[in-house]
């Protein structure tokens, strides 16, 4: 069971859950051809593919099931090196989006850039003072001028 909830298996399970919940919600909407003609077959095939990946992984955990072994990996999986900075940046990104709802856009962006630079290893004081301030307020100003939507900004 623990093997099923790890790495690629967990991702496949999440994708299968998304597909399963969506197909279930579609079925709840009615059994008309217009509603099901596309979603049901595509959903069933996706679930089948997901199950085949899981079965393949459970049988041979070190090898990915492949029906086309000659195709080179165009998007090689990244190394483990970037995981912890990425997790930190994810948290900051979520914080930025939440902050945009309550704080002025320019202030939230300035703080995000400051925290992001610090988290990723920038330690030059003058750069940490100037760059986030200029870029954060600059981005917010340019987009406020370009976009027709309301944007709460300090400047």
């Amino acid at each position, binding site marked *: 069971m623990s093997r099923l909830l790890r790495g690629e298996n967990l991702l496949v399970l999440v994708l299968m859950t*998304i597909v399963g919940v969506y197909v279930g919600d579609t079925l709840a909407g009615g059994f008309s051809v217009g509603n099901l003609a596309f*979603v049901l077959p595509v959903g069933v095939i996706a679930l089948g593919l997901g199950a085949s990946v899981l079965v393949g992984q459970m049988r041979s955990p070190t090898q990915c099931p492949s029906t086309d072994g000659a195709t080179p990996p165009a998007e090689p999986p*990244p190394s483990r090196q970037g995981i912890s900075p990425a997790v930190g940046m994810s948290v900051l990104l979520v914080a930025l989006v939440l902050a945009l709802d309550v704080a002025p856009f320019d202030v939230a962006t300035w703080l995000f850039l400051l925290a992001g*630079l610090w988290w990723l290893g920038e330690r030059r004081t003058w750069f940490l003072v100037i760059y986030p301030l200029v870029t954060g307020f600059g981005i917010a100003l340019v987009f406020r001028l370009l976009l027709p939507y309301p944007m709460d900004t300090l400047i």
Partner: protein
Amino acid sequence: MLSPDAFAGAIALLSSSWEPWLVVVPGLMIGLFAGATPGFQVSMAMAIVLPFTYYMDFLSAVLFLTAIFTGGGYGSSIPAILMNIPGSSAAVATAFDGYPMTRQGRFDEALGLALGASCIGAALSYLLLLLVISPLSTAVLKLGPSELFVIVLWGISLIALLSAESMVKGLLAGLVGLLLGTVGMSATGAIRGTFGLPVLLDGVPVVPAMIGLFAVSELFTLLGRSYIVDDEHRAKVRVSRIAAGLLRTVRYPVIVLRGSAIGALVGAVPGVGASVSNLVSYAETKRRSREPESFGRGNPRGVIASESANSSSEGGSMVTLLALGIPGGAGTAVLLAAFNIHNVTGGPRFILENMDVVYAIVLANFVQVVLLLVLGLGFIRLIALVVHIPVRVLVPTILALCVFGAYGITGSMSGPITVVIAGLLGWWMRRHGYPVAAAVVGLLLGRMAEGELIRTWQISGGQASYLLERPVTLILVALLVLSLFGGRLLRGLRRRFLP
């Protein structure tokens, strides 16, 4: 096929006033900037400047918007090559070989190749448009919903095959994308997958999801490095290498011609366009290559195939816009809006009555291509400096731009929230070799695929025999099956019959 009177009229239109020409250079610059900025869509830039066209005459307005379109077509290849972030779905296949070239320190050559292929592709498609606008528009009109449905499936299967280490992973990602593309209110009025959120009634915000899946996930994978190109020597921008790449394009005339032909034809299909044409051209070039294993590892032919096809799609999509009044994609939809502003309706009657204007648009686009060559060269030098920016500065800055870009598209927090969710999912998918490109193309085409399937069902009355009366559908189905299983079949036959 050419009307000499209308041709002379077009030249008179273009030479009688400076006004149409004054807007071309600013249009190209806006397009280059918008295309090259991850999270800033070319169609969005066109929409932003649309109100300015109120104050222009019809020809100037169309030339201004097509200049943005042309500049953006090339501009979107720049982040694809430099950062593996396609500026739009049209540049997905460009990243397959362009980004590996960057990692090898050959980014200036790749940018030159992309510029050359884009210019030639766009010029050829407009030449084709000039020659065959009337017969081509008639042919496009004959494509029914069954053909369009199979074309969408073909596009998805191609990207699934091309971008994943395994077909199963590629197809799974593509199918999940297709399903998510149908979230919201369906064509028949059924509401699905919204979970009570009104914002999802119109579906998952596609562009923010694309920004998240492509840009955010790629930025996360860059973390842990100091620069995009770590070797300082290889990160030098050399004009000679850019020019060499540019000139190298002409050494592959077959790939350029094939890519341009595919781009013009696929681009003429409403709703499909450049998102599919770059993949079809890339797949075809890889299939015909003597060394297919070198694709995805920095083969210049891959960049040329993709860029010549996506740029020539512009001319193709102009066919349907001018001849049928149907926009081929988001960019041509904005052009259609400009048509409406000037009380112009595209269609056979428009072509018949305004052939001189149509020719003027085509001729001016030839000039735009030449200007793009000049402006593009200068712009490349500027934008290629991105490889000298430390990743610790680049990543937070572009993440902030992505969030603002998404807000700009939706006008609410649904855009930024979608960016974050899609970005994290995309990063997770990349870590396990699931192609985000397949999911994105699925997301883009899901609603269209469902609509065309339902229309096919309605027209056929549920009778499968209807498909036997559609030879083009059958040919497309055969191509789809061949794409999926042709390689395996061939290898099986080789194993059996060859020692």
